[in-house]
């Protein structure tokens, strides 16, 4: 069964989240989904069911840190920020991604 086009590919979620947080110092989970959706012009959609476990895993791996804060609408929310380790991971994943797309592109072109 072909994957729905707007599902985020397994394994790329971390990359997307890290990338998002790299340019926005402090965001909560909902903002991250909205941001990815907006920036990708609704091409990519983050499943809430994957997002939060992923955020927690990334936090435990030391790529993110989180803290509780208050939004403009005065709601309690958990805000995430990228760490130095997270930035290194981002660089590594960007490189992997670039090679992957490059590789996949070549295969698609020449195979």
């Amino acid at each position: 069964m072909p994957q729905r086009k707007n599902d985020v590919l397994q394994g790329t979620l971390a990359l997307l989240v890290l990338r998002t947080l790299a340019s926005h110092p402090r965001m909560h989970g909902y903002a991250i989904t909205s941001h990815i959706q907006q920036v990708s012009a609704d091409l990519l959609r983050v499943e809430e069911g994957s997002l939060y476990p992923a955020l927690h895993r990334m936090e435990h791996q030391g790529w993110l840190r989180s803290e509780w804060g208050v939004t403009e609408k005065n709601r309690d929310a958990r805000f995430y920020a990228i760490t130095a380790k997270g930035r290194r991971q981002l660089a590594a994943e960007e490189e992997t991604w670039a090679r992957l797309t490059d590789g996949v592109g070549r295969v698609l072109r020449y195979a």
Partner: protein
Amino acid sequence: MRIMLWWRRLRNTLRPGRLEDDIARELSFHVAERTDDLRSNGMPEDEARQRARRQLGNVTLQAERARDVELSASIDRLLREVRLVARGLTRAPRFTASVVATLGIAIGATTATFSVISGVLIEPLPFPDSDRLVALVHRTPGAPGVAEDVAASPALYFTYRDHSRTFESVALWFTNTAAVTAAGEPEEVPALRATWELLPTLGVRPVLGRAFTANDGVPGRPQTVMLTHGYWQRRFGGAPDIIGRSLIIGGAPHEVVGVLPAQFPFPQQPVDVIIPIWPVRAQAYIGPIGERGVARLQEGVTLDEARADGRRMLSIMRETMPLAPWISRARLDAMRLEPNFKPLKETFVGDLRDTLWVLMATISVLLLIACANIANLLLVRADARGHEIAVQSALGASRATIARGLLLESTLLGLAGGAVALLLAKATLPVLLAVAASELPATIDVSIDGRVLVFALSISVAAGVIFGLLPVLKFAAPRTLALIRDAPRTHSASRERHRARTSLVVVQVALALVLVVAAGLMIRTFQSLRRVEPGFAAPAAVQIVRLSVPQNMASPFERFIRTQQDLQERLSAVPGVESVAFASRLPLTASGPSGPFLLESRPDTPALDVEFRYVSPGLFETLRTSVRAGRDFDWDDHYSTRQVAIISAGLAQREWGSPAAAIGKRMRRSAREPWVEVIGVVDDVRHDGLEQPAPDTAYLPLSESLALRAAPQTNYFFLRTHRAGTAALLADVSTAVSSVSDRIPIGGVQTLGELYSSSIARTSLTLLLLGIIGSMALLLGVIGVYAVIRSMVAQRMREVWIRIVFGAPHAAVTRLFLRQGLRPVIIGVTVGLAGAVALARLMESLLFGVAPLDPLTYALSSVLLLGASVVTIYLPVRRALRVDPMRLCLRDPA
């Protein structure tokens, strides 16, 4: 950092609630935001919220998934690793079995010992608020020689009961025996005699009937008795109609009013009946001390406050209570009696504490030796697996991964050993308790409970980590990894490995020496005790029975003494009996009362504290205590009012220069008492136990007891006969006694030899256990040395053979190995000597007749270990040298 991570995971697992809370909060925020968005797109609020919820899915599921991410990954990995390690272990069954068995024995011994410590020392007495129960013991710093824990008396009881500001209640008690006639034969049973407050003070209620009240025990009223649960079951089959029944106790009817609960751990040794006592205020003198006191502190009162209150009350007692005739106010003041109240539990356990901790310490050392041995085995195994580790490392396994694998293996072994240990401890505990029965408070329950389980589990894991650490340190070290990776079997790697194993030998030898010295000190203690002259001879051929004359036969005095003489004569007629005599107290048991005696020859000096006992004619002949001067008593001495005494040689020697010089000298209890003339001097007898110096003793005829208006109703009869200890003799004794009266029960049946053995029972028991532990330590230590030497020989034999081929004498080769092998042994012995000194200090109170630093013991123990090591080294070397070197040298190199 890693630790923090693990800690967080652990916390997440243990306290999922907190994390779930966090996640739920975060997700509900998400729903709220989504709802807002949908609404701003024009959706009605309800629908918006529903939609938002649906999109998010089940909140709990989300939370679980988030938590699972962290947990499942690590648990999965752990389980996978455990499976891997377990499979590895089953593939080496001999290794696994020997490790698990060694650990099982060592941890099992430690666990069994700990369960005794837990039950006896740690577990509180099973009474409500038992920490508020104190034993009313006292000190007399001004009267050296008087026992440490001076007990209580009616005078103290009345004082404490009437004037205390810190006690909730006070009770007086003592134990002796009671002659109970229920139906048929009289039976002598252990009895607890106590004031009515005892049960309320302890917080114990009867399961049947009622407890004593202030009216029980009052002279003139019907007498009452309570039964312990055990006696009620055993003697009366648990009959529910026991209440109200009448028992004849000591010749008088007593009504059974109550039955105690099954668990009644008071006092240390179980009793069958409780009989109320009712001290008479008019007869409460300061002076005689024979009872014991127990009190319950008021809520929140500390022991120090109680002691301070006690000091205040003692000064009240000095003002309000009359003095006993033989004690002067000056002497009382000089004794400086002061309260030394202790937790009740402490007086129950007594000096058993030291013995138990020494045992625990030695067994832990044994466990350490076992760990060292296993570390050795693990090193050998890790060597064999060097290649495997190298492959793992080459495949990119980090040092941490390898270390974890090794530690996991040793922990798993530790746990398996722990499981075996629990089974062993469960099996051996009853044996241990049976062997130690005479030394343990019988009423205290010892079992493998939760605390013991936790202990066993922790030491299993700790042992696993301890012996697992060494291979980890060696093989996870970066340098070694590189070595293995690059050249798996170089000589330098084996030298590295060798150094670790040599240091293990040092540890093992050092620890083994500590235990051998401890066992050695106990052997020397035992020897010293055996060498002590007890003051009697051939004790195995002396039968002892305790005969108690009922109250109504104890007076008038002539009737009492006639009965005693009758008993002695009838018993003398029993076939095979050479001689018979009796005394009011047993030797060796520290049971004799003592009192002050003034000497006529030294009127100005303070009174001597002299132990006294009433004895019949012929006692010294029967016990084979030699009469050094003067003569033995005859029956005339017992009937006449002429006051005579026989004293111990030590006393005679010290006061008058020689036994003969003491004859005809006079002494008395106080200025108001008549003079007593010394008519004989006998050898010192160790009345207070073999390890105590023989006390100054005065032997008195029964007539002397008239002065105290208290004839000793209970006397110990000694029968010198080759039939001692046989059932046939007892049957004859029983017939002889009942021919005098059928109301005299026979109790306390034992031979003097048994009494002698039980007086050194604690030493024998400690010696036995330390002996076993010490030999095991020696064996394990020698095995450790052997393992190292054998691998050293195996490694270097080729080189050695070449030397031999070129003419090196065998002796030189042997010397080479001895030098190398003995080096760690000698270091170990040196270190061990220091450790032994530390343990010996802990053991000091168990030793007798040997200094904790006894040079002979230390020297012999060192020589023993060194000698055993020399043999251990020599044997494999000699075996290797027997092979024809040419043949091996010419063989193709393997």
